[in-house]
């Protein structure tokens, strides 16, 4: 990926993200806030393990986004999924959950 997430992108969150954020365990919430502070200044901060997911062009079009990414909140348990809309210079925090929650919501089976 050549997109530079640090190049003046605005950060927005979805209602779903905000709802789920409020239900996070206190320690995870604290870790998320720490990580988002890093994310706001450097989306590639090493601790975040920011990674672009492989998504087909058709799905990206359906989602009305240019790419789908994720970063980790704490070790490999909780992660945050976010979208990028390049033309709008927008990063959208789409969802957050632990391994089981993400698998339940978006798992292949």
């Amino acid at each position: 990926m050549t997109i530079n997430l640090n190049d003046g992108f605005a950060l927005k969150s979805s209602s779903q993200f905000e709802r789920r954020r409020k239900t996070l365990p206190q320690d995870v919430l604290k870790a998320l806030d720490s990580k988002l502070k890093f994310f706001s200044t450097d989306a590639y901060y090493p601790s975040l393990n920011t990674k672009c997911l492989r998504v087909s062009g058709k799905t990206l079009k359906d989602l009305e986004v240019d790419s789908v990414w994720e970063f980790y909140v704490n070790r490999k348990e909780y992660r945050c999924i976010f979208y990028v809309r390049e033309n709008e210079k927008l990063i959208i925090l789409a969802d957050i959950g632990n391994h089981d929650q993400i698998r339940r919501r978006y798992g292949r089976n």
Partner: protein
Amino acid sequence: MNYKFSRKDYIIYLLQQVPPEKADKLFLNKLAFFVEFGFYHLYNKELSANTYAAINKGPVINDYAVLFQELKDEGWINITSNHHLALIKQKNFDLPEEIKSATRQLIEKYGDLTTSELIALSHATDSYLITTKSEQFMGGIIDKQLALLETIFSDDASSEEEIDPRKLPHLKSEELHDYQPE
């Protein structure tokens, strides 16, 4: 998993787990740091009552010289002229299985490294770099919660295979909010 080593017990426990020939002061300081912070990263709980200072040698147990001297004075260890720590007597720890398992894996992982490798690795930890502001300020106590930010304790698993992107939510512009950090 509610178990927390006292400062001295943690050192005794580590000394019982590592090859005696490797147990010098610096090695033990680094091992203590990596096992403690690795444990905190995994379980968000303190493993011991020790705190860690960020000095020019990297993270070390706060007041480690005093701690080692007290262990010597109490007859637990000998300290040789080349800073080697030799355990004199064993102690039986009645630990929960989860503690045994978690610490065993961390001790095996980091105990296999040389002192030089541990020093180099410890200088690159986020916990140390954040506390020292990239090595500009020394002497601060490292907040154990910084362990949550570390990537060195994470396995590099991929999530791509498990997510079906077609199931991801379609988000309408009108339901987006400016993100406000707490």
